[in-house]
């Protein structure tokens, strides 16, 4: 009797679980007729960071997701039956050190990694440029990729811009997003399609305080105060035409620094005025937990992904939040901002170059990017990504931003910017947020001296 009760309970639970997890996975080859592409043979070792290898469930939306391994079985194995693909999963945590170790020990042929890491690997001579492979392969069309991501990013091109070492596969989403409802409640005109830093500041000031309709505390602005690469600074540097450094990052010793300039003063002035408009937690990268949700209390978020609003649409089907949280371009004169580009790169000492090149093409292809979008909402790097949901205004805007992206020497590829300048800017922001901004002239003068000293020591 007892046994049958347990069995009944177990069966009920199993039924409940399977009923709750309805919905088919998407993006794989499935029943489609996938044809063989080539008989080429070889073994290719791929190291990837952060990909879901097996089928699972998206914790934010509850949708079933297709793992990379089943996807490869459904597609790649049919297209290239004689290529053995060995995939190693590496967590993002300290991925650079682990991938570097794999490259040094010659245990990997292809790597999916972060753009800044890829650039470092190239500078260290651990990965190769792929210009010859592209030139000799008529079937590969670089024209399918967004210009800004393929040609204008240090994540895939050498610092002097002459060599291509990577193919972009996934983009980051960083745009200005505003809460239309909050603008209406405060009676403020919506942001323009390409807002200037002044427009953002002016409107954010109007919406900081007690909401006239709800009576709740609202904050006009949010941006990350401890960003690893201070992407808001990059967008502002475009807006104010900052020419902070001249020369080539290949030759750090001869870089000419222009950090104590009126343009840089404008950037820090903007931060000084913007910092008090954000919730205090922004100093440590928090404070925007509810942005994109019903209970939001922030009017404008800079370098936002809009992810929460779109995930709500994916899980409930309601487009209310998508209509409410509107993405616009970043603060550059043409809407430019910092764009994260994650590429696939090839090891310098690759085991089987031809097979590795075929795998590289497959991983960055339309099909694979479609798979990544449908299963993990990754932003594609393609000009024509017709698989993007027409309601997904955030991915569309991120792709628009990537297309107009341009290189900036004050970027994460610049070691002085990353290790010395970003901490100074973040420190300045935190002081401004606490009502004690340091003197801008002194900050910039110290930064200029530090940069010159740093270059001389290289």
């Amino acid at each position, binding site marked *: 009797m007892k046994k049958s009760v347990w069995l009944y309970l177990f069966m009920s639970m199993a039924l409940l679980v399977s009923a709750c997890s309805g919905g088919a996975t998407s993006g794989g080859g499935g029943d489609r007729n996938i044809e063989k592409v080539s008989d080429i043979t070889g073994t290719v070792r791929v190291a990837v960071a952060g990909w879901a290898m097996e089928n699972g469930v998206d914790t934010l939306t509850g949708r079933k997701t297709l793992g990379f391994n089943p996807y490869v079985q459904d597609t790649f194995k049919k297209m290239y039956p004689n290529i053995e693909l060995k995939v190693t999963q590496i967590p993002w945590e*300290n991925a*650079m*050190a682990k991938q*570097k170790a794999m490259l*040094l020990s010659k245990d990997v042929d292809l790597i999916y990694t972060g753009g800044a890491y890829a650039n*470092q690997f190239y*500078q*260290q*001579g*651990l990965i190769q440029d792929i210009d010859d492979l592209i030139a000799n392969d008529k079937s590969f069309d670089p024209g399918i990729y967004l210009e800004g991501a393929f040609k204008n990013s240090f994540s895939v091109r050498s610092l002097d811009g002459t060599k291509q070492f990577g193919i972009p596969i996934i983009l980051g989403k960083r745009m200005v997003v505003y809460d239309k409802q909050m603008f209406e409640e405060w009676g403020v005109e919506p942001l323009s399609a390409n807002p200037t830093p002044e427009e953002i500041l002016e409107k954010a000031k109007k919406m900081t305080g007690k909401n006239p309709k709800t009576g709740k505390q609202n904050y006009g602005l949010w941006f990350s*105060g*401890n*960003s*690893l690469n201070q992407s808001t600074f990059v967008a502002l540097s475009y807006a104010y035409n900052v020419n902070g450094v001249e020369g080539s990052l290949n030759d750090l010793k001869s870089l000419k620094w222009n950090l104590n300039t009126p343009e840089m003063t404008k950037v820090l002035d903007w931060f000084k005025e913007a910092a008090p408009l954000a*919730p*205090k*937690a922004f*100093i*440590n*990268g*928090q*404070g925007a937990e509810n942005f994109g949700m019903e209970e939001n209390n922030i009017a404008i978020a800079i370098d936002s992904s809009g992810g929460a609003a779109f995930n709500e649409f994916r899980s409930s089907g309601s487009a209310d939040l998508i209509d409410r949280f509107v993405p616009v371009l970043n603060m550059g004169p043409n809407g430019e901002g910092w764009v994260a580009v994650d590429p696939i790169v090839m090891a310098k000492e690759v085991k089987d170059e031809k097979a590795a090149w075929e795998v590289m093409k497959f991983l960055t292809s339309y099909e694979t990017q479609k798979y990544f979008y449908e299963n993990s909402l990754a932003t594609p790097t393609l000009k024509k990504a017709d698989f993007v949901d027409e309601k997904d205004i955030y991915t569309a805007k991120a792709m628009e931003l990537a297309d107009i992206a341009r290189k900036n020497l004050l970027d994460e590829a610049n*070691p*002085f910017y*990353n*290790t*010395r300048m*970003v*901490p*100074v*800017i*973040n*420190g300045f922001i*935190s*002081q401004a*947020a*606490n009502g004690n901004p340091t003197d801008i002239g002194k900050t910039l003068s110290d930064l200029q001296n530090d940069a010159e000293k740093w270059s001389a*020591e*290289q």
Partner: protein
Amino acid sequence: MSANVNAMSGRKQIRKRRWTRNDRIGFLFATPMLLGIISFSIYPIAAALFMSFQQTNGIMGHWVGLHNYSIVLSDSVFWRSLSNTMFMGVLSVVSGIVVSFVLASLINSLPWTFGRNFFKSVYFLPNVVSAVATSILFSFLFYPGEEGLLNFLLGQIGLGPVGWFTDPTFSRFSIVLMSMWGALGYNTIIFLAALQSVPRDLYEAAEVDGANGIRKWRYITIPYLRPVFLFMVVMGTIGGMKRFTDVWLIGGTAGNPDGTLLTSVLYIYRTAFIGHQMGLATAASYLLFIVILILTVLILRTNRRHDID
């Protein structure tokens, strides 16, 4: 002459005795461990020392002698990071030891075994939580707005919200509080074990002499536990000087707010893995090692002087 011969043969016998079959087997068993130590400890230590004399990104480099050390020593950011580290380290060691010792004494004085075990488990629980989880938990407990739990409680007694991790005045104290919460259980367990090793007859003799509880604690317990205090101070100092995960997760690479959470290891991390200047980073690592060594020697010497006194 014969005495010399006897002495020499005796020495030979001793030498022979040093390498018995058992010794060889012992070394054979220890070989995997020795190889591990050589490969994963001694070699990296030596390689890092070599690297600290090079200008290198970890792959390619050239010899620059003491240049990296001179750069680090003249870098005000390094000194600031060291000062932050020592400030938080000293506060953590002192407050951690005092609070855990008092707690351990209170738990030890409980007459019921169940009560002792219950409190031991309760206080030890935070020790099994990872630094990452602790940092996330405290970033919400110490949330700077009125939504934060601590600020909500302060609000109930009419005090304004405090920027625990966002105001430079409070940030280092908040980190110390957080790390104390995490380490309290371990320290308390060590003190409890030590308290139980104090001979009962010392207390009985003191009672005969009319000593009360506080005097017994002051004149028997504390002096008897001095080696344990020393152990805690040395280990706490070493641990405090290596502080990284919590400050990195909360303050980012800048050590926000205003660099107050920038510690020496965070300085080393961002120089090595963000700036890719391995030579500078390893030089800073060796300088930090020297500082820790000096502090440890000073603590041990001070203790030895007390022993002599």
